[in-house]
């Protein structure tokens, strides 16, 4: 393989790298360099004004052994990640399966369902924040249908607040997996279904034995993508609960923001940055393996 490259001469190498250069310079300055700075910073104490003070691995020890907010926010992040991922993938699959039957107006449904995806997260968070506020629409609806007993301060109870935020994510982002599943379903050959029909497969078996197995690839790609995207959760929590009550609804991102910009613990908060970057690398690797990108790299097909 090396030989093939060499035979192309150095000019191709040069042109390739020249075309990549502007973008690589940008990500090096604004993503890779800050990542390394975070790594360095995580071994220091720094309040943003005085000189960095070397702190060894003390920040890490503090974070992993004594900081219960860290554990709480880590667990919250994973809960949100799993809830939002499997919620959106499940709803997205059901919607896609129905739309794929080409029910009446299916194109309009697809357009409507995708609309929330384009709305700003902060606007969506504010809207649902007011709906689930104590005097908001949600409690008002419960009152009107005679279920006053179910009225709660939605954001006052940590687990309820988390469920609400997962619900909002499902509301806003289910259409994303839906689009993927639809694309996958359109590639399934109708004859497979017909053959199964002849063999006496029931309608439910059609879905469980044919559609789902054939969508396994698409499904695993979209699950990983959703895990990556939902791991980035920040704005929902920042706007809807601000980590309240009693710091129990923080996620990694909002906790980092609080440590850094409210408590000026820039070294300590960097431990959270490192953790997030490592997670991103792991997800990135899994995505690489699943998405078919790795095959393309290996083949070196151009």
């Amino acid at each position, binding site marked *: 393989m090396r030989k093939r490259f060499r035979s192309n001469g150095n000019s191709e190498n*040069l042109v390739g790298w020249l075309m990549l250069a502007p973008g690589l310079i940008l*990500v090096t*300055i604004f993503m890779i360099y800050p990542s390394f700075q975070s790594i360095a910073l995580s071994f220091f104490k720094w309040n943003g004004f005085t000189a960095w003070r070397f702190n060894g691995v003390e920040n890490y020890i503090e974070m992993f052994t004594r900081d219960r907010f860290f554990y709480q926010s880590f667990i919250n992040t994973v809960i949100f990640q799993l809830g939002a991922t499997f919620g959106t993938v499940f709803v997205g699959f059901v919607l896609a399966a129905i739309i794929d039957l080409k029910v009446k107006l299916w194109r309009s449904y697809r357009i409507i369902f995708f609309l929330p995806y*384009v709305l700003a*997260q902060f606007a969506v968070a504010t809207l649902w924040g007011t709906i689930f506020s104590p005097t908001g629409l949600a409690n008002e609806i419960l009152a009107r249908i005679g279920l006053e007993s179910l009225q709660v301060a939605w954001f006052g109870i940590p687990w309820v607040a988390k469920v609400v935020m997962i619900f909002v994510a499902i*509301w806003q982002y289910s259409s994303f997996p839906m689009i993927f599943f639809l694309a996958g379903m359109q590639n399934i050959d109708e004859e497979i279904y017909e053959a199964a029909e002849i063999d006496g497969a029931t309608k439910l078996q059609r879905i469980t034995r044919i559609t789902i197995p054939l969508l396994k690839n698409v499904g695993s790609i979209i699950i990983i993508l959703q895990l990556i995207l939902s791991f980035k959760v920040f704005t929902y929590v920042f706007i809807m609960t601000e980590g309240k009550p009693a710091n129990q609804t923080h996620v990694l991102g909002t906790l980092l923001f609080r440590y850094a910009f409210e408590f000026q613990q820039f070294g300590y908060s960097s431990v959270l940055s490192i953790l997030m970057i490592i997670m991103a690398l792991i997800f990135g690797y899994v995505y690489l393996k699943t998405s078919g990108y790795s095959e393309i790299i290996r083949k070196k097909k151009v």
Partner: protein
Amino acid sequence: MATQKSKFGSFLGSSTLQLLLILWAFMQIIPVLWQVISSFKTTREIIVDLFALPKSFYLGNYDFTYFSEIGIKIGVYFRNSMLITLFSLAILIIVSYLAAYAIAKIRFRGKNIVVFVLIALIGVPIHALVVPLYYLISDMGLINRYLGLILPYASFFFPFTTLLLQSFFREFPDELIEAAKIDGCNNFQAFSKIVLPISMGAISTVFIINFIQMWNEFLLAYVIMKSNDSRTLPVGIVQYQGNYITEWGPLYATLVIAIIPTILVYLIFHRNIIKGVTAGAIKG
């Protein structure tokens, strides 16, 4: 298709399935619609009855002089957001177009590493790097400056955009370029006359997808744009909401202002968007 529909339809009854879609469609639209309707009610009306339709078509919530009297410059924020988004997009698209073309069409050593780095960077959220970014941008003297957001935005959206565009170039037939060269075009002419016109569709797709992301970006803008005159729309509106949380009428009006541009872009270009989101993610 017709047979498939009738057979599967009888399984649950196609009207049941249709009903599910209608319910979900309502779920998606009603909250947004409710917010738009509420923005035409006075705050008093909203408090008295959350459900009632506006008594009169009240436009007072959209009164920009009210906002400017309390220091909320909606017009300025809007202009800031628009300029920052457009300049970031211009840089992003040029830079990732070149990179994508190189990845898809040119053989060079080290491509594996580049692709892996780009994929790894997709998962790095802005907020993970917000501290070093803040000090970097501050050292560059770019706090409160458009460039202080434009350059990071172009960088953070570069990995995904490049991977998406390269999947387009990968399907682009080499024969077209070869044919043009045989007809006497040089490299540059082949590019400008053949490659560029055909890729306009892909370019508009990444334009729209990134427009939405950049227009909606909140955290970095919140940290970098500190002065009132440099704020972007999300930052300005969140600032307003923080201080006037009980002014429901104007609050809903600001939310409507914030979501209208992306909704318009979506309604005009929904085909490109829906196609584009899936294009980059599967099989490179």
